[in-house]
């Protein structure tokens, strides 16, 4: 192929290793930072090292209890509540997107009802959210939904609806109609066929869709920034406020929080690897 | 132009031996069919000739030149895939021109040759079409034209007719034969269809389980099968093969078929000669369905059988008979007047019977 095979193979490994190193540098830096005590954070406070010299759980302790031996300042708000807020709103948002998306996708896929949906939901992804947020913010405060779990979950459900809808539509399109027709001939109602025949057939796909949409909701920063104030701030918002409260940068503590925020999507992402392409391209591509 | 010699060629995929020490000489300008059931190693053999797969052992020579280290692109072989592998994103013209373009021929030369090939293939009015829009029959023609246009010395075809409808397949069979005369190339043709092989090839190489069973002209392979596999594989319906044992009946050599009857070899010199080369008493007797006779009279020397089923196929009638628990088939040109359940006598044809060793399956008394 490309010259002789062994040469190509070693070049390939070299390039891939380079890419892997580039990918890992920032990740590893944050990962190890989470376990570094205060003096190791920057060259301003001491010598930099890639691995913590005196590994400590202090950073985690600090963000959860509000105090630690290293730092004199105490924290007035700890991390449990933002973590819980992220979790609850991401899960509920996912539930809304997947339920509404699945129903709509089935209607379009099988009955050709609601043919405006595919493009209408897609346009939800086209515009920068900030360009259309003013009326949403007005509505949310009008309806008393700012800084509430239901308000945030609802908007999460809406912005990830396109992904859920398109993913489920391509999955439904792949289920042969003949199977449903067989059940219809047996005398099942249309809804029973959907519930008892088709849905179980796309079970695995549905689960992947849930994980995928969860990742998207979990990753949000902007919407939480706009629609939460105090009680329901999510991890990224809380994380960013850590620094401003302290004056100086809280590198280790924020890295610890960042690590906690980064783990679920990476784990889920690897779990649904074979659906990622399909999800990210709204079902246009398969792997 | 080139001859192809395969010398002790083997291909193993892990534990599986796809091709086992194959020896084959394909002379220049000949049309050779690699024939066998699926999984017999014929496609692997072809891929090795093309260079898509590397042999585990053995050598491939084109005109006595070892091409082992030649990449597929430089072997000068044309290859027609079973599913045609037409470039769906190109027009017919671009498909035909592909081989010439990658060789960086002058534009005018490419144009001339593409138009020539198109008219030969009767694709003139399809040149601007995207190939994704063509019918299967047209795809087939593009596939052949695309490979032929570079004028390769060797042409390899992998079951090129298997996706076509019956009528077009028959048409394409004659067309291929014409083309081969025209191009004067060495053609290797992989197929599992013995009728295709018989009607097209100068020689047939019958393969099974990676092993070459027989290599010869269609007539040879049909009339003098080397073993029971070839005997059974060639012809439709296939040859009747009946286990029997060698005995002597009143001093005359004979074949005993147990309760079904006995066949005296007194009147059949050819069969007798084969019989004499037998090493063991247990044998397999073979006769083609179209050679066998059925009589209702008792006095004829023959084997007792019962008619179980009569199957008219066009002008022919295939009679299924039960002979001591084994089903045999006899093909007749005319209507068959005997009813189902009738007890009849089956008379093997004199001089057209085959005899095989029951153990090895090898034919007895072939020269």
């Amino acid at each position, binding site marked *: 192929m490309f010259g002789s095979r062994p040469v190509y193979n070693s070049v390939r490994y070299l390039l891939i290793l380079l890419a892997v190193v580039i990918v890992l540098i920032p990740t590893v830096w944050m990962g190890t930072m989470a376990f570094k005590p205060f003096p190791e954070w920057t060259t301003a406070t001491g010598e930099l090292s890639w691995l913590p010299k005196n590994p400590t759980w202090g950073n985690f302790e600090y963000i959860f209890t509000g105090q630690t031996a290293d730092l004199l300042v105490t924290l007035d708000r700890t991390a449990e509540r933002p973590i819980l807020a992220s979790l609850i709103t991401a899960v509920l948002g996912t539930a809304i997107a997947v*339920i509404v998306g699945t129903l709509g996708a089935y209607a379009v896929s099988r009955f050709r009802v609601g043919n405006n949906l595919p493009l209408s939901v897609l346009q939800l992804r086209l515009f*920068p959210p900030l360009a259309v947020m003013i009326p949403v913010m007005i509505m949310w405060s009008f309806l008393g939904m700012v800084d509430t779990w239901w308000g945030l979950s609802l908007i999460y459900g809406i912005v990830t609806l396109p992904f859920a809808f398109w993913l489920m539509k391509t999955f439904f399109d792949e289920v042969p109609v003949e199977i449903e027709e067989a059940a219809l001939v047996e005398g099942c109602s249309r809804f029973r066929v959907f519930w008892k025949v088709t849905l179980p057939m796309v079970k695995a796909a549905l689960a992947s869709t849930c994980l995928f949409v969860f990742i998207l909701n979990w990753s949000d920063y902007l919407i939480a920034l*706009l629609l939460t104030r105090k009680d329901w701030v999510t991890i990224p918002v809380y994380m960013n406020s850590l620094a401003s409260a302290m004056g100086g940068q809280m590198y280790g503590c924020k890295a610890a929080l960042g690590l906690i925020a980064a783990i679920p999507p990476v784990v889920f992402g690897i779990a649904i690897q074979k659906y990622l392409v399909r999800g990210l391209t709204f079902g246009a591509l398969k792997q | 132009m080139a001859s192809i010699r395969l010398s002790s060629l083997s291909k193993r995929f892990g534990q599986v031996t796809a091709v086992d020490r194959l020896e084959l000489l394909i002379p220049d300008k000949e049309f050779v069919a690699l024939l066998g059931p699926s999984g017999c190693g014929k496609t692997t053999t072809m891929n090795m000739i*093309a260079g898509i797969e590397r042999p585990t052992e053995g050598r491939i020579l084109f005109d006595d030149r070892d091409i082992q280290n030649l990449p597929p692109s430089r072997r000068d072989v044309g290859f027609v895939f079973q599913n045609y592998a037409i*470039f769906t994103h190109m027009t017919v013209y671009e498909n035909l021109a592909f081989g010439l373009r990658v060789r960086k021929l002058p534009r005018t030369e490419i144009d001339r040759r593409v138009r020539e090939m198109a008219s030969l293939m009767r694709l003139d009015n399809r040149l601007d079409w995207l190939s994704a829009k063509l019918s299967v029959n047209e795809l087939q023609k593009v596939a052949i034209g695309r*490979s032929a246009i570079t004028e390769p010395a060797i042409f390899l075809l992998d079951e090129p007719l298997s996706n076509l409808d019956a009528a077009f397949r028959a048409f394409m069979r004659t067309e291929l034969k014409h083309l081969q005369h025209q191009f004067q190339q060495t053609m290797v043709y992989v197929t599992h269809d013995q009728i295709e092989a018989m009607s097209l090839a100068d020689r047939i190489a019958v393969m099974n389980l990676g092993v070459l069973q027989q290599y010869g002209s269609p007539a040879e392979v049909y009339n003098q099968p080397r073993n029971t596999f070839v005997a059974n594989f060639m012809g439709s319906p296939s040859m009747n093969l009946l286990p029997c044992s060698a005995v002597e009946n009143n001093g005359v050599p004979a074949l005993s078929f147990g309760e079904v009857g006995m066949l005296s070899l007194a009147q059949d010199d050819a069969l007798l000669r084969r019989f004499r080369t037998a090493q063991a008493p247990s044998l397999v007797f073979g006769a083609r369905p179209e050679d066998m006779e059925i009589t209702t009279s008792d006095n004829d020397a023959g084997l007792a059988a019962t008619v179980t089923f009569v199957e008219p196929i066009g002008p022919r009638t295939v009679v299924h008979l039960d002979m001591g628990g084994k089903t045999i088939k006899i093909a007749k040109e005319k209507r068959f007047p005997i009813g189902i359940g009738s007890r009849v006598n089956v008379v093997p044809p004199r001089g057209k019977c085959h005899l095989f060793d029951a153990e090895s399956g090898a034919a007895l008394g072939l020269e």
Partner: protein
Amino acid sequence: MTATTATEGKHRRGKKPGVTPLEAEGLRLGFLMSLPAQLLLLFIVVFPLLMQVYVSLTYWGPLDGESWIYAYSSLNWFDNYGELFADGRFWGSIGRTLLIVVVCVPIEFLLGLGLATLFVDRFPGRRIFYSILLTPMMIVPAVAGYMFFMMFQSTGPLNDLFSRITGLTVDFVWLSDNDLAIVAVMIADIWQWTPLMFLILLAGMMGVPEDQLKAATLLGANAWQRFWRIVLPKMKMVMIIALVLRAVECFKIFDLLFVMTKGGPGIQTESISLYIYKLTFADLEWSYVAALGLFMLIALSLLAWVGLVAMQRAQARAQAPGGAEA
């Protein structure tokens, strides 16, 4: 609005004679099942859009002390829109955003394509390397932004690394430097989103039929010719999808910027999203933001519409002469 009436139209047709009971049942169920999605769209598209148009024609702001309903009291018709065309900061932020898109997306594309070619055939370790290379795009963008915030500190690891390699004292103030700040942001964006390109392009490349590649080889094409004449043309659609997706997302860039530079130094890295954010929360100019947002909505819709039409044209051209699919 038009959305729902269209559905109802179909529903009504379902009751006409000539429709079997089974079909009617299907239409009824389909209507019910698509209802939540339609209502949600009505809620999030139609009402807000009307509201945005309304507010954008006024001077209303959240601190006016009166509900948006009474915004008409400060009605100014198209003043906001007039202001927008003279707003240098707006056009500057658009330009900066486009610069980021124009630099980052092609680089991400080329890097992704290169990586994809390395991964088309099997080799030991392929799965694990693949998984590692995908991780950046799964990391929460705000967290990724923070990673690079740390990396680019003048007292951070990157300068430390350069210092050690060169032996000099490297102390770039990346994020406060007028020119380097946007470069730092671009590096972060490329780091995070090259994997997405890689993922999509690899899927496309794996979808190129192997037999056609074999056929090309046997027709004498070398690796380079196969890549240009078979692989790339076959991936055209995939490449368009990848580029469009990334361009659309990159145009919205906010999280990385907000965490890394907040648009600074000055407004050197202010993207359009960031500018709008500041207008909304620092300046509280909501009616102006509404006008600005609406303007972008229209501009982007036009762009999308032109793109869609072009794509449909191309598709129609590809399907010009009839015949069976291969």
